[in-house]
């Protein structure tokens, strides 16, 4: 929680700025709409967080999301009864892709950047090969409900987001999360304490795959079938995680902060939109903000006393 404070502060400022222009944002409905929109990226960022904190990358999530949506559309083909089996299948596929990423990374010792880049190519090729170049079939109303519908005024995606967020936070507090952190921080120390480093990392990749599957369900539900639904999501997710103060290289940062990073990114988009920054220059602003935020090491609280690192470590 403490580590998530700075990014939460930034988020609150952005949200306030949005509310200033658009008072509707303060109403429950307005805020829920924002949360609903942000949910897919936040979930994807949570998944990416596990991989990054273990010291790896997952570049394959974007094409995995696309693949999942295309698969869902073709298999469901508008048939309501197919909804649940296909959702189960999507989740299995997500886990499986993560498993392959993880196994190749750990057992074959290929850098995860390359493994997941390869997976990106394989997935985007394979799924369109299978579907004949463009999505076919259709999603069922039941499937769409996850992205569109809600329980009373609360969108399903927000509820799913809450569940995923709670699960992610719980996981990071559980043994798995703690050992994952240590594996990302000091792989050797973890191994010498009996941590099955490979297994833990593979599991992290599987979580990322799972998050991509859930994201696909939400995005497919929200916006329908599209061949480019996952385009660029891998970079957005990594950016969000880093924006949350999670360090590339592993071992530092909290999952709450990573999710807050995703919210922040989404709030930033909304804000740029609201303030009428031209659609074109939006990217420029985004690029500058990302660099500045990371450069400022957004994580460290300025008022929190911490001895300079070098001092403490030099003596040990």
């Amino acid at each position, binding site marked *: 929680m403490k580590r998530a404070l700075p990014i939460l502060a930034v988020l609150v400022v952005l949200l306030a700025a949005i509310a200033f222009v658009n008072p509707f944002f303060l109403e429950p409905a307005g805020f829920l709409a924002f949360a609903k929109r942000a949910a897919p990226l936040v979930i994807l960022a949570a998944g990416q967080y596990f991989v990054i904190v273990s010291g790896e990358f997952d570049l394959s999530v974007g094409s995995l999301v696309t693949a999942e949506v295309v698969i869902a559309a073709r298999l469901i083909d508008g048939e309501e009864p197919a909804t649940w089996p296909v959702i189960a299948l999507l989740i299995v596929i997500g886990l499986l892709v993560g498993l392959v990423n993880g196994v190749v990374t750990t057992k074959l010792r290929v850098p995860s950047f390359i493994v997941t880049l390869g997976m990106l190519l394989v997935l985007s090729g394979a799924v369109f090969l299978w579907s004949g170049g463009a999505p076919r079939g259709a999603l069922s109303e039941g499937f769409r409900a996850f992205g569109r519908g809600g329980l009373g005024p609360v969108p399903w995606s927000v509820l799913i987001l809450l569940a995923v967020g709670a699960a992610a936070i719980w996981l990071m507090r559980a043994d798995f999360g703690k*050992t994952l952190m240590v594996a990302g921080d000091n792989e050797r120390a973890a*191994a010498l304490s*009996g941590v099955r480093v490979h297994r833990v990392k593979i599991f992290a990749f599987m979580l990322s795959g799972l998050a991509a599957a859930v994201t696909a369900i939400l995005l497919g539900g929200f916006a329908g079938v599209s061949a480019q639904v996952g385009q660029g999501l891998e970079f957005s997710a990594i950016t969000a995680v880093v924006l949350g103060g999670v360090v590339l290289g592993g*071992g530092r940062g909290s999952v709450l902060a990573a999710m807050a990073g995703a919210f922040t990114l989404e709030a930033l988009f909304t804000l740029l939109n609201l303030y009428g920054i031209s659609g074109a220059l939006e990217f420029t602003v985004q690029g500058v903000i990302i660099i500045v935020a990371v450069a400022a090491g957004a994580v460290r609280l300025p008022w929190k006393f911490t*001895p300079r690192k070098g001092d403490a470590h030099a*003596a*040990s």
Partner: protein
Amino acid sequence: MLSMRGIGKSFLGVRVLSGIDLDVTAGEVHAVVGENGAGKSTLMKIICGVHAPDEGTIEIDGRPTSFGHPLDAQRSGIAIIYQEFNLLPERTVAENVFLGREPVRRGLVDRTAMEQATERLLDELGEGSFGPREAVKRLSVAQQQVVEIVKALSVNARLVVMDEPSAALAEHEVELLYRLIGRLRERGVAVLYISHRLREVFDLADRVTVLKDGSRVTTHPIGEVTSDELIRLMVGRDLGTYFPPRSSGVGETRLSLRGAGNHKLRGIDLELRSGEIVGVAGLQGSGRSELAKAIFGAEPFTEGEMTPSRPRSVREGVALGIGLVTEDRKAEGLALHQSVRDNALLVARAVGGKDRDGVHDLLERVRLSPPRQDQEVGYLSGGNQQKVVLARWMTMAPRVLLFDEPTRGVDVGAKAAIHDLMRELANDGMAIMMISSELPELIGMSDRIVVLRDGRIAGTLPAGPSEEAIMRLAAAEVVS
């Protein structure tokens, strides 16, 4: 050429060196000996510009000097050869030798000149086993050391500092080292030679300086001391330091080895018993750490017997109830960015141990001060860090606990606390093995001391042996 006066240095308020005087003359091989923790490494780092001294003066050729950066020292003609080499494995010998100062002709690196110069230096050192174009990754450790020495020579170093140069070398490779040092001396280069191995000191050095507890004890021409005297000077400190009383009784055998070995160890016979602290002594490179890692399962034995069973992995070791407090806390022990609690609970979490609430009590029991669980471990002192590692293993209530240099880099107070704890654990019935290069510690703590040499057990000594006795076994060459 080098003259140091009144050098002192503290880290975080702990005094590491005080009032050191040291003179090195050209063409001299000057040995520096002392126990671990005597301050040798810090002194070397000051000479080489890694640390700046808090007090005292350094003069080179009579001119006062201060080094802000290792490069300053290098420019003054001082080169250091660390135990871990500073070489790029992917590059060639010549490229490594001239790294950062490649000769240039018409704007291009003059590879011919570079290789010829390297070749020449290799020839001068009588080294014909590899050429300047060889990739460093293909060289043996001894050959890499040669590269480091050539590198030192190529900067026209007039003083070469060698930190335990023989530690990583096999017997026949040490011969090569001797020859190299001989050549250096012929060229008028001064060598500051840090070693534990007294035979080397007597074989090589012109003078020897003994450090103890951060101060200089004495400097003698080598002809004026015997090895026994030297050992006494090094270790001959007042054993008034407090150690907890020895074990009340030794219980059942917890672990036994019969003819166990692997790539580094041969024919190890050893029993660890409940309630007993077994000390393991040996020079660096004698296989001490390897023994601990083999028992633990991290670098498993490949031959011989171990009862109850021979672990093939860390997890099997842990399942047998074996724990290992590693030598290098930063590289192998701690996740520095994680909290005290997360580090302490690591083993419990890794193997699915259940008792998590006990960690608070454990941290109090190891006397972590203050016992804050949410502190990042990287900000703790060495002693507190070690206590965290210890607490980590205590969460699983091990049957056998192996300590590799448990008090290295730990201040005096924490040291005593760790010693007390070790004895406490033994009295609770744990079998404990302790590796240490600090002889007083080993003697003060152990119920039995096993001395390793070249991967074998050179001998076993009962409780309370003299330091000389250990040293004789560890460095048998001296007396044999």
